[in-house]
Every structure is written in structure tokens, then in C-alpha cells.
């Protein structure tokens, strides 16, 4: 019975991916591509991806943009509001390592300096196809046992 429940949870987790999107000082380029990934041509809902309004409902946090000091605390707060197991995806060159803004005085060197990141999707900005491909890579990589999933997260 316990095995069945674990299996059921693992099955459900791979097929139901609710994402919450945070723009941490991004130029909007990645953000509109994330939105575009949900629209008819790409339709991420096919794969069970859904954009949810509150971080408390989310499984995956999509972060775009380089960090700036004002958004730093916000990003941490949002991350803390998410229930376990939670995964973080950094989207776009800025979120990966600062990108073209790397040496600006008010821009950070990527969001992994603030919160742990599970997957990086490079590009300036990545295509919607790239974003969907990345999220799928992420969830198919989720281990089947929840204990291991916890390790991946922390």
C-alpha cells in the first residue's frame, strides 16, 4: 500500500506541474516568452503545466532576470512560501549569471546566489520550445521516491 502511494505520488508529480513566475529585474523578454509558452502555438498545458496565481499552490518557481537588491528579499520570501517539494528554474542569461548586465552596479550575478536552483535554461531569451523542454527535463528527472526528491530540493 505504501509502495502504491509512493508510486501514485511520483506519477502525479511528473504529470502535474504548477508553475509560479517571478520576474527578478528582468527585461520582460523572458517573461513574455514564458507567457507565450502557454498560448496556443506552444500550449504547455498539454503536459500538465499550469501557471498558478499564488506561490503556495506552486511546484516549480520560474525566475527570470538578474537579481537586484530590492528583489532579493522578495525572491527569498516567495521561495519560502512555496510548499515542499519545490523546484527552481532559472530562465535566461541574466538569471543564470547576470548576462549582459553582469557588471552593472545594481545587478547580481545570477539568482543561484540567493536561492538554490535546480535547472538552468540559457538563452537571451530562450524560445518557448526551450522553456517547455527545460521544464520537462526537470520533472522527468524527479526521482521516484519522495525522500530523494527532498534531497534534490535542498
Amino acid at each position, binding site marked *: 500500500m505504501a509502495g502504491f502511494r509512493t508510486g*501514485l505520488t511520483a506519477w502525479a508529480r511528473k504529470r*502535474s506541474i504548477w508553475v509560479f513566475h517571478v520576474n527578478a529585474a528582468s527585461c520582460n523578454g523572458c517573461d513574455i516568452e514564458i507567457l507565450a509558452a502557454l*498560448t496556443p502555438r506552444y500550449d504547455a498545458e498539454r503536459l500538465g503545466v499550469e501557471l498558478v496565481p499564488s506561490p503556495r499552490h506552486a511546484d516549480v518557481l520560474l525566475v527570470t532576470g538578474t537579481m537586484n537588491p530590492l528583489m532579493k528579499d522578495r525572491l527569498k520570501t516567495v521561495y519560502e512560501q512555496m510548499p515542499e517539494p519545490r523546484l527552481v528554474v532559472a530562465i535566461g542569461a541574466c538569471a543564470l549569471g547576470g548576462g549582459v548586465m553582469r557588471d552593472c552596479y545594481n545587478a547580481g550575478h545570477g539568482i543561484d546566489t540567493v536561492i538554490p536552483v535546480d535547472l538552468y535554461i540559457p538563452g537571451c531569451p530562450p524560445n518557448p520550445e526551450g522553456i517547455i523542454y527545460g521544464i520537462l527535463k526537470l520533472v522527468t528527472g524527479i526521482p521516484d521516491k519522495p525522500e530523494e526528491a527532498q534531497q534534490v530540493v535542498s
Partner: protein
Amino acid sequence: MTPIEVLQLLLFPGLTFFVWLAFLFEWLERKTAARMQGRRGPVVTGPYGILQPVADFFKLAAKEEIVPAESDSFVLRWGPALYFAAPAIGVAFIPVVGAQSILYDPLDLLFMLFILAFSTLMALMLGYASAGRYSTIAIGRLVVQYTGYEIPLILAMVTPAVLARNLSIAGIAAAQANLWYIFLAPVAFAVFIIAALAELEKPPFDIPSAKTEIVGGWMTEFSGNTLAYVKLTKNLSYAFLSALAVSLFLGGAGGPVLSADPTVQAVLYTVYFLAKLFAVGFVIFVIRTALARVRIDQATRLFWTILTPLSLAQLAVAILVVAR
């Protein structure tokens, strides 16, 4: 209560049957919306993505549950169960197989009214208990909306009862053997569907859960199990209200008797019921997808100044018809 009745209550055509119907309704709703928007909707989870709501439910149920510090943890712990119980008990009064419902009372229509009100009350308590700012605004809107749609909803539900001179759902369904009340009282049916949209918080009346205005509405602060059950309950209410519409206006499970074998006929009745249920559900899906959200003041104006007089007039007509 006999063991058969308990089984009926729990499995078919009781709770389990309706819970699966609720999942099916969510899937159909998402599929319809997606197709109307030029998308495909869920496809990978199960055939045609039919298991998507199931996957959502089990995933949420296995997630961590965060209880905000200011919230009333007692209400948050037991509230979802009561909230779920309302439509779960309600469905037992719906006749699915033939003219008989599992539970029956000569006055059970009044109990339905109580259940609908109770369900809103539980939503209110849950939202208030979670103590979020957006939740508070949302329940304010919920109450305002409730005061708007409650009276037309009750009037629309009473109209078939007047026509049938009966206050039980099974009785009303049985009284429509010759003529469905949707033809006798079309306005009441329309009012019922519109009020049901408001009760279910579907567009254009998704004001208390407007994602773009107040985040997740009164569900903003919920997570994990609570969220899973609240969402399931909303879908169950969806199926329940559609089933009520079928029983009150579309003749319940009634239809042509094609076989002398009672088992075959029972299957046929179930098929009739499901066909009508999905027809009603489909009407709601289409309305929900095709319309934009109205504002709370516009919604209440619609209910008070248009729908209430309309349903009152319809009731008066029904009384005249019956008196004659």
C-alpha cells in the same frame, strides 16, 4: 439502512461515482476551454489527458501544507472536510438510476437549499480563517455576490417544486415524465444556470477568485491537502449543481423505457442521466469560456434588478399554471 444502500451511498451512484464525475467535469471544462481558445488542453496524462485532474489532486495531496501563523488552524484543519461534506451529501439525493434517489425525504429540496448556503458559508469561514489579505477581500466579494444570487437561485429552484406540487427532488424529477420543466419554465432554468455560475465562481462571475485582481481569491493561502480538497469540492459542486439542474428541469434520469429487463433499463437510465448532465455541464463550459469577468457591482446589479424580478415573474406564472 441495508448494506446494499451503504454500498450505493459510497460507490454507485453515490460519492465515488460523483467524485469521478467531478474529475471528469474538470477535464471536460479544461478541454472545452482549450479547444475554444485554439489550444489542445491536457494530452499526456492518460488517454486525451483525461487523468490530468486526478494527477493534480494526488500531487497536491502529497505536498507540504503551510498554515500561516495568523490563521485559525482549527478551522483550516476541519473546514475542508465540512466544505467537502456539503455537496457530497447533496449528491445522495439526486436520482441517477431510475426515479429513486439513495436518500429520500419528502422535503429534501429544502435541504438542498441549506446545503448550497452551507457550502458558501464554509468557503467564507475557510477564507476568513486563512487570514490572508487577498482572502479577506475575496470573502467580502463572496458575501456580496452570495446576497445577489441566492434569492434568484432559490426562486428558480422553487419554481419546479410549484409545478410538480412536490418538495422532493425525486418527486419533481418523476413528475416530469411527460414534459420537462425546462419547456414550462425556461426562464427559471436560465436563472438557475446563471446563479449556478455565480455559486461555482465561474466566469463571468469568478469575482471572488479573480486571479488577475486578488491572486488566488479566498484560496490564496491554502496549500497541499487543503487546496486539493477545496479544489475537488469545487468540482464536486460543479457536478452536483449540474445534476440538480438535470433533476429539476430536465426530467432527472427519465427517458424512454426500451427494455423489460430491469438491469438493462437501469443502465439506460444512468446513460440518460449522464447525457443530460454533460449537456448542462457543456452549456456552463461554453458560457464560462466565451465571457469576460464582470465587476462585483455589475454582478449584483444584474442579480437584483434583472434576475430576481424575472424569477419572481416566472414563479408567478408557474403558480397560475398550476392553479388553473
